[in-house]
């Protein structure tokens, strides 16, 4: 196992600089807001021109400057793909950690509370929709009351099984088909896209986090913490998650790649964001309209690759500081354990 070269400082600096530049570009795009910047105005006399002194990266099939479009597109990258990747990672990490920590038997719920909640849900469904809020309110109150009753009988909550089933559920319908179906229900908008991306990307992270936590849980220091009477939350939050963090952080760029890829493909299939919402995926998808316009592909790919490279570099070097590969390894190995 050779040592890694000692030039990461320069690379890391470059990576940080690139990401910082993107954030600046996004801020610029935000600040100009809905008033379209002059550079991204449609100019029908300049359709699909190759790079020149005036348009460094050429113009797209709508006569807009590709560089300006890409810079303005960072806004949607930061407003949609990045939050979606963050949400997917957070959702996956927390669901997976809960499933891994408590398993199928660890978390128990009051029988009385479950009965009350079930009763109110069935009641809400059977009666008309106008009574729905009342039933839900009654259910919540009843469940709280049941908590204080002397009925101490509990049922185990099969958390692990539930999370895995939900993961299997989302993973079984192909993402694109799901997106097509959802597009039929609601016109694509930013919150919609964010929800679709986050809702379909979380299962791999959940599986990773679940196996990590399940394994760490059996480490002696966690057992000691439990023996010392620490609460579950404290153990999870203060002891387990910090140890699982490097691996989870490494999964963020992967999720971002997936989110971004899906967003781009939706643009390609014509069900992405509206055309006045600029994003990189759309620029790449426009290249299909004008196959001879290589500058569209080159420009889009340059931005995309640099960003992905920077993210991978930063997450990889970060994870190396802590408990690097042993965590990743065990994670990946334990992923195989069971679904």
């Amino acid at each position, binding site marked *: 196992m050779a040592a890694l070269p000692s030039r990461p400082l320069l690379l890391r600096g470059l990576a940080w600089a690139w990401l910082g530049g993107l954030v600046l570009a996004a801020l610029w795009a935000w600040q100009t807001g809905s008033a379209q910047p002059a550079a991204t105005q449609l100019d029908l006399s300049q359709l699909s021109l190759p790079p020149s002194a005036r348009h460094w990266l050429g113009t797209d099939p*709508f006569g807009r400057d590709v560089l300006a479009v890409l810079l303005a597109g960072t806004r949607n990258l930061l407003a949609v793909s990045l939050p979606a990747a963050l949400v997917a990672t957070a959702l996956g990490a927390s669901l997976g950690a809960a499933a891994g920590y408590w398993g199928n038997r660890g978390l128990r719920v009051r029988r009385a509370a479950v009965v009350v909640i079930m009763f109110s849900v069935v009641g809400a469904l059977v009666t008309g929709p106008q009574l729905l809020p009342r039933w839900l309110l009654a259910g919540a109150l009843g469940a709280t009351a049941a908590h204080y009753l002397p009925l101490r009988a509990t049922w185990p909550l099969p958390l692990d099984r539930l999370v895995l089933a939900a993961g299997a559920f989302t993973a079984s319908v192909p993402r694109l088909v799901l997106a097509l179906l959802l*597009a*039929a229900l609601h016109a694509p908008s930013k919150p919609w896209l964010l929800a679709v991306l986050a809702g379909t990307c979380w299962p791999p992270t959940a599986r990773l986090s679940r196996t990590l936590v399940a394994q760490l849980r059996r480490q002696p220091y966690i057992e000691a913490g439990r023996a010392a009477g620490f609460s579950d939350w404290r153990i999870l939050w203060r002891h387990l998650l910090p140890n699982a963090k490097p691996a989870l952080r490494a999964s963020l760029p992967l999720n971002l790649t997936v989110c971004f890829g899906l967003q781009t493909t939706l643009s390609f299939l014509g069900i992405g964001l509206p*055309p006045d919402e600029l994003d990189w995926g759309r620029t790449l998808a426009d290249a299909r309209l004008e196959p001879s316009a290589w500058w569209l592909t080159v420009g889009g790919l340059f931005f995309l690759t640099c960003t992905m490279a920077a993210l991978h570099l930063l997450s990889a070097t970060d994870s190396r500081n802590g408990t690097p590969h042993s965590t990743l390894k065990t994670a990946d190995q334990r992923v195989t354990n069971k679904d």
Partner: protein
Amino acid sequence: MLRFAVVWGLISGILGLAACSSPATSDSAAAPTVRVCWPRDPESLNPVALPNAYAVQANNLLYQSLLTVDGVTRRHVPWLVTALPKVEQRDSLTYLHYRLHPRARWDNGQPVVARDVVFTLKVLNCPGLPNESLRGLVSFIREVQLDAADPRRFTFVCRGYAPDYSFNSGDFPILPEYLLDAPGHLSALSLRQLAQPDSAVGKLPAVRAFQTAFNQAARWRDARTLRGSGAYELASWQVGQQVTFVRKSHWWADDISPKTPAWTAQPGRIEFHVVPNPATALLALRRGKLDVYPHMPGADFARLQTTDSASFRFYSPASYRVAVLEMNVQQPALRDARTRQALALLVDYNRLLRATQYGQGQRSTSLISPHERWAYHDSLPLRPYAPSQAAELLRQAGWQRTADGWRHPQQQNPLALKLVYGAGDRTYETIALLFQQSARQVGLTVTLQPTEAGRLSELRRNGEFDLSLRTLYGNPFSYDLRPLLHTRSIGSQGANRSRFGNAASDQLLETIYATEDSVGKARLLRRLQTLLYQEVPFTPLFFEPNRLAVSRRFENVRPSGLEPGYDISSFRLAPPARQ
């Protein structure tokens, strides 16, 4: 090293094989093979279903109707009959007299007779078959009278009178009874019985038996049962990939002389290749894997003209498809005609035409093509692009420009419009972006909402939009605009998506439909065009051209503005000198 050698051997073997195998099409000079590019599969070849234009085109190779349209002359011509129908009006009924061509034969050698026409109408009216869209089109035919002396003569008895009857009555494919109903399930039933709405006829055992036999999907993929009196038969259909037709060795119209274009069938083999991605289709065309590329995207057409004009001929006859910006007149903000007029002035028509149609296409003042000189209202001026005039009109309509947009004293919110259109359509996208940009110049907010087709159709039906981009499909024959503009076609009852109309306009549409003499009809149509011009339920953007690229190997393409835009049966190999 050895490994590399093996790999190279394999690769060169594959390439070598491909090189020998690729252009092995059997092209005889008399009956050439024509390869056409289609963006999608026809989905069904069932002659009563015809779900899309490609299915219609394929069906016209297999089956024949009584009349057909000659694209170049834009006229109906006889196809299975000897002449156009003789029209006779008696009382409140119309009688259309036809005589089938004496040579017309099915593939079993039996002549096509009036009995087959009656059978076809029964099939089109039979409940439980996928004939819903065709059924409405032939519902005016109440009865068919046969001639005792001549089995080829028959008369359609039609309710009321409309000039459109004469060609609508010849517009459906005639089906062979011997193939589709050998046991004669339908022969005991009359046409009138089958055509009754909501009758119990669908439950009769004979009808049930017929439905089961007819609705077998395999029947409409099998060349033995999927055949009519047309010149071609199905050779193969690989769904989503390729549909191939081959010329029958002997077709009944081969013996006719003099030959009209409708009775010619030159190509020996017609292949329709399904290529959904336009860029891929363009590559395939340039590599000589395809011969005909109809409905080309404007940009590809312009590019191909500069790169490959040596190997292709280019045609762009004006079509009857008009792109319009439709406005929902029942939306509170758009109720005032002046507001709608203002919006129509915010479209930069000329730049739009240049950007999306690359210099082709034609502007119009209404949904009637300027090529139809007799009906087109040419004294109306083409609307200019005039943002300042638009702002003035908005002011006249009671809107006041404020810091947060245009406000109306009687409206709660400032004027903000939602423009919906089919997602993924590049032309619409350009139009929408341009319109949004010009609206912003006068301080008007337009939100773009590209929408998936099914959802879009629902939004339009329910009137949940302000503006929408749409293409209207017209033809030079029928001026029945009631499905588009009548108040009875609003919502889920028809295609009037702008929800425009009042008693007077309905009356006008009905009169236009019923008027036969062309002078009177032209006068009424001009009145309608003036009305639409003032009321602006939509503003016409342009008539699209039918962009078509055909390999120089072929001649006699007969391009036309009518679907499919070329006459594939007339294609001939060009003599080598002219290639």
